[in-house]
């Protein structure tokens, strides 16, 4: 998993809960990296799982809620680095529609070893899009947060209906209706 996901995550934890929380979840986890992360490194996903579950324990918030909040925040990270790509799309639905066939294609050019989720679009019109999220990580809540921020970025709102197609949440249907 890309280091920026870790560094941004820990920064967010520090912002919301304080540096003690960061220290706590790192020392409770058994981390190969010893909690040392840089945005340009690559680390094991299992480290993220440990950090998340310890944070969840400590805050009594569900992992999915935490991921959702992180997703909401993470859009701004992407915007900082890749505003050029975002600006190519005039509507949030167009951007979502392009994740698989454009954005991820570009991501792979920069990070050939990136392990990306897939977003298969099964329906799309001006105000509605249906996508199937598939990822072994089951981070669909993170995706939901990102999607909501996307609409917000364009000054729009949407209702996002989520249907888990399995318990692990590795296949999840997103039905998104933009508010008119």
């Amino acid at each position, binding site marked *: 998993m890309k280091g920026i996901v870790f560094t941004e995550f820990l920064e967010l934890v520090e912002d919301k809960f304080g540096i*003690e929380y960061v*220290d706590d979840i790192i020392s409770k986890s058994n981390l190969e990296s*010893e*909690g*040392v*992360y*840089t945005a*340009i490194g690559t680390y094991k996903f299992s480290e993220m799982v440990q950090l998340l579950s310890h944070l969840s324990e400590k805050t009594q918030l569900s992992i999915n809620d935490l991921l959702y909040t992180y997703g909401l925040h993470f859009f701004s990270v992407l915007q900082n680095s890749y505003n050029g790509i975002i600006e190519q799309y005039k509507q949030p639905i167009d951007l979502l529609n392009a994740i698989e066939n454009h954005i991820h294609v570009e991501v792979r050019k920069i990070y050939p070893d990136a392990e990306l989720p897939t977003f298969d679009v099964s329906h799309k019109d001006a105000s509605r899009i249906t996508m199937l999220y598939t990822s072994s990580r089951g981070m669909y809540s993170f995706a939901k947060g990102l999607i909501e921020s996307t609409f917000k970025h364009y000054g729009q709102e949407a209702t996002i209906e989520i249907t888990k197609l399995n318990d692990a949440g590795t296949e999840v249907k997103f039905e998104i209706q933009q508010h008119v």
Partner: protein
Amino acid sequence: MSNEKVALLQRALERERKARKQAEAILEKKALELYEVNQKLQVSNASLEAVNHKKSSQLDGVFDNLLDAYILMNLKGDVIEMNPSAKKLFGYNLDFEHVNVVHLIYKEDYKYAMQSYWQLINKGFFKDYKARIYTKNKEVKRVHINAGLVYDTKGKAIAAQGIVRNITEEYKEAELKKALLANLEKRNQELKDFAHVISHDLKSPLRSMNTLIYWLKEDYDSVLDDDACEIIDKLSTKIEKMDHLIGGVLEYSSIDKVEQPLEKVDIQELVQDIVSVIYIPENIIVEIPQKLPTITGDRFRLQQLFQNILTNAVLYIDKSRGLVKVTFEELKTHWKFYIEDNGVGIDRKYQKKIFEVFQSLEKSDHSTGIGLSIVKKIIDFYEGEIDFTSTVGAGTCFHFTLKKK
């Protein structure tokens, strides 16, 4: 600040420091990788440039040395580039003047030109456009053009290029040839008709002469002495020979007259038929050691061919035990036949003469001198060749080829 807080901050600081070092190490590695990639790129760029340069100088060479005219135009027909041949052909120089291809089109060919242009735009090319064009000083020339569209990297048509060949002379020559050919055909026809008419016209007085001689002999039998009778008999023979001669001319002129249908002809059977029909003295044997093939041709001409050679072979045998041997060989595109005899032989000096019409090497009553010329004509018709090998006194071998149909 509590000790605990200090320790926590120290840990955080330590992580940050390590992260920084890690980042620096990663960046260092990346920088090195970039440097190496850059080095490689420079090398491949240099070789690409070399290839590019080579290609473009090759193209320039082709462009300048092309004997045909080369024209590059935009899709509106404005000429952008002309090679030296094009400048020479059309007489324009793009450095000083603007040329649009529409102005080059001969007015009567305009519709055809527009159709070709339509094909170019829609299909991307046209081929074998043959029409007239105007040069700068209003000369009219005939040209042959192949043209195609030029596309940019995205596949959008941006121009059209054409190779223009000046076929003015070629066209004139072809026209001349056509006229000559037509004339020749007419002449040939006249000649054939002439031969036919002459033959027929000559034959009827001969028949009358024959009848008259017969009457002469019959009516004046009592008054004619032996000498007179002998002269009259010689006269009859000469008339008969004349008749053969005329018949031969008729046959010769009719070989390529009628187009016979092609069929499978069993040469073995054909030769055996001939042997049974023509007169063969008892001291002569015709031998066919190997069964002759079945070939495609027209039966009448093949019969004439074999009959003439076989008759000749038999005729000129002077040995007490005569032998005529017929053999063949299958070549890639032709059949080759050999007809060998142990007759008088032919001197090499007659080689050219014997296939000419009316050439008989021996003054003989039954030789018209037409036979071998018929043979030659038939073989020409079958795109084959005939020749012979001979030893005077020992025999002759005629060999000829016939193209497989």
